[in-house]
């Protein structure tokens, strides 16, 4: 029998009674309850459920912000949220852009309908999330679409390509599961830094392997790059063994199979700016970035370079 889905029910008001609990059981769901959002946060972050059902009226601003925090991070965004609403709330209208939930059900709850909606939620999540399974960041198709849309709209955006220097030897020395930690770390810091730097349109994607891409308004590019690099350099210390950290290098085999000293992993960020609508097509962006990256790769440590050339240059 497959593992049961764990459903977290928040709110005391219209909690399902014993009879409904049996229904949940019969459908293969295990219920965890929490009277308030505040009390539920620990469970959500530490031991995430498979689905969250909100019975309480989300009147409190703080509660709404907690939902936004869960849905806004990369790690819990995939947990489906269903909220139960009164007829009155539905008829007065809901500002859905404020409510990052996946579905709703009207009160009093028809449990047959609820279960149908719950299975639909799980199915939909499967479809929507064809993101990178390791980092849960959007992959190539979304990257291309997002950047092309910004170019078409003539937005002043900067597009960055991030890759990890000495990633392959790190992987060989420490094993791929620790290599994955470095990749996941870059994904998390990229997402967080972009979101904290600008509330306008920002985007982070995972090209694959140790390559990432991001988009940010042009005037923030320098700030974002500096923050990414200083954060990475501080964080990477946590992922290198004590002795290697002390020596400031590690020993691994190079591509020819010879033992060699490698510096600790660092980042290279190549950024191109769509200044004066310099680019028409995504392919031109990628090509311009590749040239910069070649130069960056020859430098030691973490570096970034922002190319602000105009079309005539």
């Amino acid at each position, binding site marked *: 029998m497959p593992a049961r889905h764990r459903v977290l029910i928040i709110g005391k008001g219209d909690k399902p009674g014993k009879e409904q609990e049996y229904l949940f059981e019969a459908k293969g769901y295990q219920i965890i309850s929490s*009277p*308030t959002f*505040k*009390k539920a*946060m*620990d469970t959500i*972050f*530490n*031991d*995430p459920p498979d689905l969250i059902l909100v019975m309480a009226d989300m009147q409190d601003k*703080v509660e709404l*912000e*907690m939902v*936004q*925090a*869960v849905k*806004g*991070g990369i*790690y819990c965004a995939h947990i489906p949220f269903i909220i139960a609403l009164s007829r009155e709330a539905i008829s007065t209208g809901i500002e859905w852009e404020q409510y990052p939930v996946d579905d709703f059900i009207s009160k009093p709850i028809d449990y047959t309908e609820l279960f149908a909606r719950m299975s639909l939620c799980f199915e939909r999540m499967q479809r929507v999330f064809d993101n990178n399974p390791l980092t849960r960041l959007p992959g190539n198709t979304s990257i291309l679409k997002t950047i092309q849309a910004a170019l078409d709209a003539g937005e002043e955006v900067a597009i960055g390509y991030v890759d990890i220097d000495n990633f392959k030897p790190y992987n060989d020395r420490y094993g791929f599961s620790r290599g*994955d*930690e470095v990749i*996941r*770390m870059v994904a*998390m*810091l990229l*997402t*967080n*830094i972009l*979101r*904290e730097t600008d509330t306008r349109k920002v985007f982070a994607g995972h090209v694959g392997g140790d390559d990432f891409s991001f988009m940010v308004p042009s005037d923030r590019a320098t700030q974002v790059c500096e923050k990414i690099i200083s*954060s990475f350099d*501080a*964080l990477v*210390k*946590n*992922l290198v063994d*004590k002795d290697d*950290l*002390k020596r400031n290098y590690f020993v691994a085999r190079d591509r020819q199979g010879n033992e060699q000293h490698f510096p600790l992993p660092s980042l290279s960020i190549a950024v191109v700016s769509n200044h004066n609508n310099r680019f028409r097509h995504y392919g031109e962006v990628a090509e311009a970035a590749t040239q910069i990256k070649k130069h960056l790769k020859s430098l030691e440590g973490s570096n970034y370079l922002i190319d602000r050339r105009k079309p005539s240059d």
Partner: protein
Amino acid sequence: MAIEWDEEKIAGFREKLRQAKALPTLPGIVSKLTQMVEDPSVSADRIGRVIAKDQILAAKLLKLVNSAFYGFPGRISTVSSAVILLGFNVVRSLVLSASIFEAMEKTVVGLWEHSLGCAAIANVIARRLSINDPEEISTAALLHDIGKVVIRENLAEEAAVLDEAILGENISLYEAEQRILKINHTQVGQRLCRHWNLPDRLAEPIAYHHEPKKSANHYVSTAIVHVADVLVRARGFGFGGDKWVPALDHNAWAALTLREEDLPGLIAEAEEVLVELRGFSFEIQTLGEKCPPAIES
């Protein structure tokens, strides 16, 4: 008054530790942070710097980022790294969902000040010795007595008996715990570190700050926390639970390669930081008095 601690009772307490619920934080810290997270211009870094002054919130953050779910079990050892990885929104939610000490006892504030002072002095020593990551050592020092908080919070009755024994028999808290509970705060801390997947770099100094020689892999960090603990107790900053200054382990002192003539400079530098902390502590206590529990459900 005597409490019989048999095997069953110890096993019960260990089970409690395994499930250790959210530990309470000082009301003043929670008020300050709540104000900060409401202000859109406050950065995650600044919030992180305040969280790094509270053993409970710092532990909560480290526990979360080291959980298997986030994918870095046993790796992240500093509050600033945890803040970057979790992001502003998660940190903010953690602050808003923090529980606070219902009744503020003097000992609670004292223990917090002691931990804060120990973290500051450990940082001064680590910088003097040009240690690679001084923040990691201050984090270990901040958390070194977390076991004491857990004992006070989970075993109120026993905590009163411990206090009685300390005064009545003129023994240290460490000895009293050993005799009455048959488990001391360093062992409690060690267990918490294991349940919370904290890195060995933090766990060893927490577990062995009374017996640095037992530290196998992180002896220098452990020795620094040990020496900082002794110094902060000798200076009389905060309250470690009893009036005694723990005995200095001379090997640990020697391992730090500090000479006796380095001491005055070190103390002067530490003193400056402690004066600053005194001001911060005053601010926190005033905030705690002014703002009654703001968000308790």
